Every structure is written in C-alpha cells, then in structure tokens.
C-alpha cells in the first residue's frame, strides 16, 4: 500500500529542506527535484493500482478498520481514494515536479530559496491531502496548508510592491473564504456529530435538515471563491501575475482546481448527493459557470500584461469545468450528465497541463527579456523559437484545436451542454470565441516584426526548456488518443464520482 507515502514523502522533503539547504545551493535544488520526482512515482503507482482494480481504496490512520471497536460508526480519520482522487493526485505531482525542475533555473536570482522549496513542497502536501482525504476536518486542515503556502508564495518576492499587494488581497479574501468553509463544517458537525464524509453522507441522506443546506451554502461559497468563479475572481487576476512564474503554473494549474472545483464536486456528490436536490445545486453552479465563462474570457482580450491575460483565461476555463460539474449535477443519472462530468474531469487535467505550460512560457519570456508587457514583445519567435513553439502548442490546445488535447475535453462539454440546454452551449461557444481572440492577439505579437527590445534575446537554459517540452509532449500525446483516454479513464472517473453509495459503503462496509 503506497498511499501513506503520498503524504510522507513530500512532507519529509519539506521539513528536511532547511537542513539539506545547509549543504549548499546545488544540494537544495537536487533535493527538491528528487523529492517531487519520488512523489510523482508514488502517485503513478497509486493511480495504476486504483485504475486497475477499479475499487475505492480506504486507508485508516492508526488502525486497521475505520469503525470503532464495538460501534457502527467511523471514529478515525480515513483517507478514501477513488479513481478521481488518484487521477488528480497524479496531475498534482506531475505539475509540481515540472514546476520545481523549472524553478532550479528560473529562481536562481532570488534569495531565500530554502524557504521557497519548503513552501512549494508544503503546497504539494496540501493539494495531495485534499485529493485523498475522506474526513471533513482533515480536508479543512489540508485546505489551509495549501492556502497559507500559496499566500506566502504569491508574495515571495516581497521586495516588489506587486507581489505584496497581490498577496495581501489574496490573503484577506482567502482567509475570509476559509472562515466560511470552517463555519460550514462546524454546522455540519453540530447537526450530525460526525466529520467522516462517508458517514456524514449517510446521516444527511437519513435526515436532510435546513442546517445541512445552510452548511452547503457556506461551503460552496468558500469553495467557489477558492476556484475563482466570477463574482469573487478578482484575487486570481492579481495573484497569478504577481507570483513567480513557476508558482503561477502551480496556482493556475492546480490550486484553483484541487481546492476549488474538485472539493466542490466531491462535497456536492459524495457528501450531499443523497440528501439534497441535485437539480437545484446543479443550476446554481451552472449560473456561476456561465458568468465565469463570459467574464473571464472577455476580460482576457483587453489585457496588455501577458501573465494577467493567462490569469483571466484561467478564470474562463474554470467556467467550463464548473459548467461540466453543474450539468453533471442537474442531469444526474442520465448519459448527458455522465458525459458532462467526464468532460469536466478531462478538462481539469488538460487545463492543468496547458496552463502550466503557458505560465512557464511567460516565465521564460520574463526571465530572458525582463518584461511581460505584450506591446514590447513583438517578434519573439525569431529569437526564441523553442519557447514560441511551446506557446503555440499551449495556445492551440487551450482554444481546442483538434489534434491537441483541449479539443476532446471541450467537445464533451459542448456536446453535453447542447443536449442539456442549447442556450448553455451557445454561452460556452461565445466564451471560446473570446478565448480564441485573446490568444490570437498574443500569437500575432509573438510572430510579428522583432522590436528593439527583442533583438538580443536568447533561449533560456536547459532546465527551463526541458519542463516546457515535457508538457508539450504530454499535451500532444494526450491529443493523439483523446477518445481512448476518455473511455478508459475519464468516464470511469465520472462514474465513480456519481456512484456515491459505493463511496459510503467503502468506509462503512455493508451497512
């Protein structure tokens, strides 16, 4: 059973980093790369095991059985890993590995790097914990670990006003959202007297009270904030550009999805699925999804700052994921719902890959040229062909051109939303039109006439190019077998998420 090592390895790595850092710069970088690579190995093994067996893996902390002795309810913290959690754990470890490898060169000019690597590893621990946990308070603790690490990383360059201002905005609003989430969890505890998600699901199904609905409202509000849905997306557009680029890749690729949409889907399906009208919850999420789609993508067009453009584009893509989850809830039990949910899961993984790639490209441009203003960047393609190629692949994938991976996931979402309600499909298409416009604009900048600033630019070193090429390769490979991946991984993952009685029985046994 490799599951505990998913937390043990990066946590040990994080705590040992300050000590290893005493041995020098090289040792510190090597240590961080080694630890993230090891975690990636553990996550791949875990994913393979769960995918092969098709069962839900349950791990009890400190005991063999989640149930207490002589009582019929769980008394310990359980970790519960189904296919969806394992898939997201794999995604987290892959992007974290790539980002750490990238930052060995990208962060070389900064100081305080032993703290940087410690925080990155802690961030990874928090995200992996959210993916695998089956206990509500444990979820809150991991969410806070993730959030605090990301507040600190956004403001890592505290000698710039930009980082500090973005960090303090993110932090104030983020801790407010965390307070909402904690309040929701406390309300559920006060009403039902348990914190295990599976047992709580059973209790809510047996006695759905008004308190449970209030708690769901508070939890959903907090989690929509963490995912950057539209009325509360402002922190994201500030935080992602201000962070170091390797961190933007992790924030945009992972944090908003694991701490936001994944947790929302997990709570809506696995915990509240049996006790609450899924149609209502689904339509509320669809409403936010449509607003997010339009506003995020439309705001991306008018940006002149490259990283800010990518950040708004992330908001827009979160809209697609929320749309898939919302339709999955509202059309629960039908084929349309299955397809929408599979599309949302697929798009989460795809967007993690391509947005990480785009932020790494932006980082390379900033690193080599010292500016991220699009008006000064024309004609990079002549001087930095590999970076520009990586950007081309990432942009084409995010728009959803057929040979790349973004096509299949967006197609699943378009198809299901058109079958569910044509009006929603129209909104999704409008969002994509805006998104295309935004990226075409950047593309023209990249391939235009070289400006004065660009003339002496060179490609970054290997440690920055290799991570980009890994992601390009992943995008192209995933783009070549879209339907096989969707049949073999994404649809089963959507089915395990929808099958909440299996989630409950995995912990409680045949109760």
């Amino acid at each position, binding site marked *: 059973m490799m599951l505990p090592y998913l937390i043990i390895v990066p946590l040990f790595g994080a705590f040992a980093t300050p000590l290893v850092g005493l041995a020098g710069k090289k040792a510190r970088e090597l240590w961080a790369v080694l630890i993230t690579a090891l975690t990636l190995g553990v996550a791949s093994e875990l994913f393979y095991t769960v995918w092969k067996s098709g069962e839900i893996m349950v791990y009890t902390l400190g005991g063999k059985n989640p149930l207490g002795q002589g009582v019929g309810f769980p008394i310990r913290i359980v970790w519960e890993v189904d296919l969806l959690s394992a898939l997201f754990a794999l995604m987290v470890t892959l992007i974290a590995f790539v980002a750490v490898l990238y930052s060995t060169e990208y962060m070389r000019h900064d100081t305080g790097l032993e703290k940087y690597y410690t925080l990155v590893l802690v961030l990874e621990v928090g995200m992996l914990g959210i993916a695998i946990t089956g206990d509500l308070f444990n979820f809150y603790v991991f969410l806070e670990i993730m959030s605090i690490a990301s507040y600190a990383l956004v403001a890592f360059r505290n000698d710039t006003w930009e980082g500090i201002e973005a960090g*303090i905005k993110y932090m104030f609003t983020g801790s407010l959202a965390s307070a909402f989430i904690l309040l929701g969890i406390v309300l559920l505890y006060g009403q039902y007297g348990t914190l295990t998600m599976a047992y709580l699901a059973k209790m809510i199904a047996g006695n759905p009270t008004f308190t449970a609905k209030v708690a769901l409202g508070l939890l959903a509000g907090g989690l929509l904030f963490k995912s950057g849905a539209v009325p509360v997306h402002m922190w994201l557009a*500030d935080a992602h550009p201000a962070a170091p680029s390797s961190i933007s890749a992790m924030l945009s690729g992972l944090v908003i999805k694991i701490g936001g949409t994944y947790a929302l889907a997990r709570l809506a399906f696995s915990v509240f699925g049996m006790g609450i009208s899924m149609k209502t919850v689904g339509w509320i999420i669809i409403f936010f999804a449509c607003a997010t789609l339009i506003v995020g993508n439309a705001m991306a067009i008018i940006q002149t700052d490259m990283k800010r453009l990518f950040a708004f584009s992330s908001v827009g893509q979160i809209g697609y994921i929320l749309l898939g989850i919302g339709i999955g809830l509202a059309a629960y039990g039908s084929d349309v719902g299955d397809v929408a949910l599979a599309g949302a899961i697929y798009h989460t993984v795809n967007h993690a890959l391509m947005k990480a790639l785009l932020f790494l490209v932006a980082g390379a441009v900033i690193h080599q040229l010292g500016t991220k203003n699009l008006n000064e960047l024309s004609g990079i393609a002549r001087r930095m062909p590999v970076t520009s190629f990586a950007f081309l692949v990432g942009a084409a994938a995010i728009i959803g051109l057929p040979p790349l991976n973004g096509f299949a996931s967006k197609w699943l979402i378009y198809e299901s939303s058109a079958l569910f309600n044509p009006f929603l499909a129209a909104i999704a298409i409008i969002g994509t039109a805006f998104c295309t416009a935004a990226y075409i604009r950047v593309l023209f900048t990249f391939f235009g006439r070289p400006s004065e600033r660009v003339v002496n630019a060179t490609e970054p070193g290997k440690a920055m190019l290799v991570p980009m090429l890994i992601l390009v390769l992943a995008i192209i490979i995933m783009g070549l077998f879209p339907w096989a991946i969707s049949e073999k991984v994404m649809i089963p993952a959507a089915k395990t998420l929808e099958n909440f009685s299996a989630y409950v029985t995995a912990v409680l046994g045949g109760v």
Partner: protein
Amino acid sequence: MNNVVLVNLPFVVVALLLAVGFYTIGFKRNLIKVVIGIEILEGAVNLFLIALGYVKGAYAPIYTMAPPQAENNMVLPTPQALTLTSIVIGVAVSALMLAFAVNIYRHYGTLDVTKVRRLRG
C-alpha cells in the same frame, strides 16, 4: 423565556462576534484593523465550536484524578481538538497577514486599504 436566552447565550455571542467581524472587515480602512476583524471572525468560529461540545454540568474530559461523578459526564472532547487546530491555523494566518502589512507600509507608506490599489485592469 429568560432561560432560553441564557442557554443559548454562547450562540448569541457567536452571532454578535460574526457581525462585528464582518463590519470591521467591510468598513474599516486601516489594514491592521482589517486583520483584527479577521481575528474576531476566527474567534467567533472557535467559540461556536467549543459551545457545541458543551454538556450541562459536565466535567472537563480528563480522566486523571477525575471525581467519580465525572464518569460518563464529560463535555465532548472532539470540538476541543478541532478548536486547538483552528487556533494554530489562525495564529499562522495572522502572523503572515501582519508581516504583509509591514511590507505594505514599506512599499506604499500607508496602511489605508483604499490606497493600496496599483494593480488594476
């Protein structure tokens, strides 16, 4: 009637503290005061947790030297563990927020939140 208010007094205080916290975050312009508002909010949630675990007339959940009548008559220990965790998280958050406030003052020369807005667009 009086009894109902007294029994629910902790929850009334929680609601009041939440209101004060939200007011402070929403209407105060000094960064330090906003930090204080978030602290008040966290305090309210912690108080709520502890109040949920109270059993009337019960003893502290420690078995060492417990009087015989404390057997099967102790307050719930789980919310106390949860509160302890959330207090620690709250301290970490406020330490980081105050560090940010110091840095904001260094870069902007003011702690007024309405003036800390160079990022836009």
